[in-house]
């Protein structure tokens, strides 16, 4: 198994190296993740320590990206904010992919449940995601559990639909019928023969969920509905910098730039991944 796996990793690496879009996206993404995760070691200052004497300073050797209106180090705040965004994004995509996949597999495989489950999903899709998040944060308070739940719920129906559509076509494959005909229990049929076909589209969809989660969290932070002010979040940093935009544009600029780059990297990576994984599409482009 080991040689097969290492060769598979090898082909994956060489495939990435040959695809410039994928490579750029991956390098950018890794860079942003590394600096965010390494925030406690990279940033010289505590993101929460106030130095009123140094407020609204542009970037200097000590404060690389300048300071905000309370004299906090912007570099540290942006990195910690990014860390929060990335953590949240990973949690959201893990939860929504797992739940969405389970729901989609059940809805796609069991015809009787399909109508009921999918109408419920349609109902959830009808609620605007951001409004739902605002309502939930207002009710449950701004902690990581409510935030993750609030952002995950609107993503679940999308994932469920995607998985269901794959299941509907794979379920009709003769190999699934053959497996049923050999007395394989239903759960094993689903796990062995149907689930693997959903992985490729799911991986791609997960990257888009990540990007959406980062954006939603930033919007909530900007609206003042995110985490409490002592926890730096990209959205709340931008919101706090807004009144000083004329005097100190860097407070809005740097977190905004970080946010844009992060989402761009994730989306580019997802796109490149889709082109590579979706056989039909890649065949089409080759003509």
């Amino acid at each position: 198994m080991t040689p097969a796996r290492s060769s598979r990793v090898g082909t994956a690496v060489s495939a990435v190296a040959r695809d410039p879009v994928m490579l750029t996206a991956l390098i950018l993404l890794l860079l942003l993740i590394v600096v965010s995760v390494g925030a406690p070691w990279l940033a010289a200052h505590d993101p929460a320590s106030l130095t009123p004497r140094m407020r609204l300073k542009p970037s200097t050797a000590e404060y690389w990206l300048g300071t905000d209106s309370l004299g906090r180090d912007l570099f540290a705040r942006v990195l910690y904010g990014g860390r929060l965004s990335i953590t949240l994004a990973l949690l959201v995509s893990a939860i929504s992919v797992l739940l969405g996949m389970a729901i989609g597999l059940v809805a796609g495989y069991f015809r009787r449940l399909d109508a009921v489950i999918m109408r419920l999903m349609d109902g959830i899709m009808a609620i605007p995601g951001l409004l739902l998040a605002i309502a939930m944060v207002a009710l449950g308070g701004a902690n990581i559990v409510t935030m993750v739940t609030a952002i995950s719920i609107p993503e679940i129906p999308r994932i469920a639909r995607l998985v269901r559509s794959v299941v509907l076509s794979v379920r009709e494959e003769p190999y699934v019928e053959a497996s049923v005909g050999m007395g394989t229990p239903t759960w094993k049929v689903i796990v062995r023969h149907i689930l693997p076909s959903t992985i490729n589209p799911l991986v791609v969809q997960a990257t888009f969920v990540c990007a959406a989660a980062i954006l939603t969290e930033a919007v909530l932070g900007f609206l003042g509905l995110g985490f409490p002010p002592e926890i730096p979040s990209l959205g709340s940093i931008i919101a706090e910098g807004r009144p000083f935009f004329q005097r100190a544009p860097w407070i809005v600029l740097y977190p905004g730039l970080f946010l844009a780059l992060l989402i761009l990297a994730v989306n580019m990576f997802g796109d490149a991944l889709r082109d590579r994984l979706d056989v039909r599409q890649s065949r089409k482009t080759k003509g």
Partner: protein
Amino acid sequence: MTSTQAPILDIQNLNVRLPGKGDRQYAAEGIALTVAPREVVCIVGESGSGKSVTASAVMGLLPRDVLTLESGQIRLAGEDITHASRATLRTLRGNRMAMIFQEPMTALNPLMKVGDQIAELFEFHGKRLSGTDVNARVLALLVDVKLPNPATLQHAFPHQLSGGQRQRVMIAMALAMEPALIIADEPTTALDVTSQAQVLRLLNELREKHGNGVLFITHDFDVVAEIADRVIVMQHGRIVETGTAQEILANPQHPYTQKLLAAVPKGEFNAQRHPAKDEVVLSVENLSMRFETKSVFKAKRRVVHALDGVSLQLHRGETLGIVGESGSGKTTLGRLIAHMARPTSGRIMFDGQDIAALTAAEWRRRCKRIQMIFQDPYRSFNPRRTISDALAEGPLNFGEAHSDVRRRMHDMLAMVSLDETALQRYPHEFSGGQRQRLSIARALMMEPEILVADEAVSALDVSVQAQILDLFESIRERLNLSMVFVTHDLRVAAQLCHRIVVMQQGKIMEVGSAEQVFRQPQAAYTCELLAAIPGKKGFA
């Protein structure tokens, strides 16, 4: 019909290059052929022989970046079109040469009425005709191809027509501009025997009437016998033999042609007599299957009787053939016996129990006794799992020990003449014939008493088909299995089956021993089916 007139199509030394470093460099190599007016030239070969590539090269339809026309010359009515521009080719296609495809459902636009699709051709090729003139021409064409009730059917959408009718529409489209050359790529492969016979007769009449040449691509020697003037046999991208139809069919020179012809089922009754004829293993009693379309309005609901009061018995050690055209309910019957669907009413008695009444969970405990073999050997294996996973899946479900399963896998592979290295490989590494062997091995791993084969050899080349049929026969004999063999091909049924059930529109028309059904058919429908078999010399 070999005429002395100048040929319509003249291909000289055509080489079509394959990409990369495969086992062969050329998809078609050194192809030289001519088609004269009013002549039908058949290119015969198995899949991968390069016959379709040759046709695509003529039409200028070679897939770009994949296949390249390296050298050679293609002349259409004297004009060199080898390297014609896309624009030139576009005016030639439809106008001077036209193509008929294998699958008319996908070749027609599903959103356009068939009459409009034919009328479109007149627009494209710049014939200035008034609306009424175009209508008259379309109608005349549809009358020409003997579409029943053309005035009504020209307003039908493709899905409202039968397969044979759709192929007639395709032929009408091909004829619209009165092309000098028609290229037909397996035009009857997707059709029933009776529609196939009609389409072949039609093509024959039309070339007399319109004086066009036909380049006919097929894998079926019986079709060749029916229609060809001259035959070109291809193998691995090369022409191995050419000659008139009589010469090739009666006296093939090349060993490959001889092998292909030998593999054609000739209506020999090969099934060995079995000793205990009267022991009934499974009996189907008054089985019906109804499909109802859903609609809120009762009046709009349509009921389709896929099976209508079918009763039959399967004896131990017997192969029972179920033949019929598409829509006859033969596949539904096979699936019901294998418990892949539940009947609307009726009983399937097996071992003193009505298995049709069992729930899926109850059947799961008994399912190893009846196993099914599917039509498409490419899709009946999970592409992500190795052969050993696939073969072991069933027995492991029944709690057998891994060591026993492993031993039996080796036995079964030996039985279907594959070696043990197959176990570690994935399905895509095998050819169609090998995969069908594997799916037989997989079914046998369950040690079934009854094997249900649904069109199990229909997707295979003739030579492979013959091998698989032999395999079925030897396995049935060695293991004393009973087999239900569903097929649309009467010759295959004749070769393999002891008894044959002829079905039409969900009803059994005739049951009898293979010889009886073929030699003294009782039902009018059976006679019709037999008459439609192309090149039916073996049955005389």
